[in-house]
């Protein structure tokens, strides 16, 4: 597989190193002179110096072949977006993966149809939510293309939904329960499923409906 990696910071250089170890062909592009010089000994001709949003730099790195995949891993979100657009639309690269540095820019990547993306901050926050018990609604999965998300909710004794059937809940428009986990056993949530204290409930919903769902399941 031929991979072009734009941005040779810690992330880009380590990804390139790992790909090379797996036997793939890699070209790494780095704009900063000091960083490039430090990597030249290790990567030799496989690292090139230049701005990966300039067409002649991309072409020198073989974008016209085109590569099987382009990884936009610079520390600048706008650069990563432009690299992905050029790779996909100008050179017909079949697959791009972009790094999101500032999670607030995620919406821009989505708007431009750049997917998949990886955001370290968002991943860490998702783990924090999962690990810290006071977050009563845990984000498990974001289905970005579908604009849906899957969350987990823990029903406790005081929850208004404890002792009620799913069909008796006034779930918000755009939210459905998927399953109920009780004593290590999961069942698919249907209308007649009774919720009890201690249940772990999975729900699928449109982003932004969390508070409404929380109100119905957890608080009066």
């Amino acid at each position, binding site marked *: 597989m031929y991979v072009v990696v734009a941005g040779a910071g810690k992330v880009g250089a380590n990804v390139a190193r790992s790909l090379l170890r797996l036997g793939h062909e890699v070209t790494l592009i780095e704009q900063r002179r000091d960083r490039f010089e430090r990597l030249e000994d290790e990567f030799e001709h496989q690292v090139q110096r230049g701005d990966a*949003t*300039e*067409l*002649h730099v991309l072409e020198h790195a073989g974008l016209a072949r085109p590569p099987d995949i382009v990884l936009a891993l610079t520390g*600048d*979100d*706008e*650069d990563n*977006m*432009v690299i992905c657009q*050029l790779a996909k*639309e*100008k050179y017909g690269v079949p697959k791009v993966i972009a790094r999101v540095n500032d999670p*607030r*820019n995620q*919406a*821009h990547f989505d*708007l*431009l149809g750049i997917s998949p993306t990886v955001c370290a901050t968002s991943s860490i926050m998702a783990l924090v939510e999962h690990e810290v018990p006071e977050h009563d609604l845990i984000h498990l999965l974001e289905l970005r293309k579908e604009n849906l998300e899957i969350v987990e909710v823990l029903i406790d004794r005081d929850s208004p939904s404890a002792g009620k059937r799913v069909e008796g809940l006034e779930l918000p428009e755009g939210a459905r329960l998927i399953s109920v986990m009780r004593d290590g056993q999961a069942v698919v949530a249907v209308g007649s499923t009774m919720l009890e204290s201690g249940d772990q409930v999975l729900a699928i919903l449109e982003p932004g409906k969390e508070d409404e769902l929380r109100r119905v399941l957890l608080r009066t």
Partner: protein
Amino acid sequence: MKALIIGCGRVGSSTALQLQSEGWDVVVVDENEDALSRLGDHWPGTFLVGHGIDTDLLREAGIEDADAVVAATDGDNTNIVIGEVAEKRFDVKCVVVRVLDPARAEFYAARGMRTVCPTQTAIDTLLETVRSCEVPVVRTTA
């Protein structure tokens, strides 16, 4: 008529002042608050400090009812992303994006973006001016 100018350097500030004098309601955004001085001592419009791809800031600047957005920061890619966001998310009808790199300007122009490339303009003008000098052709002898 309302215009948003992102980037208050030489180009952005002059564009803002000119539009304002032509009766536009102008909001200027720049990362650096010192850039306000480029708008003179009596800037009657709004000036906001922040990054031009920050959606909250764009909303605060009134992008939702802007008739025109000019992206003129010193970063080509920042301008391109501002242009995409203004067109696709906020549906602004007149979006003009400054791109210094002629290759990227051409690529985005072909996709329908209104790009302005000062580098290309300079190249064209320089060539035209040299040609207009009518330097006599020197015949080389065989």
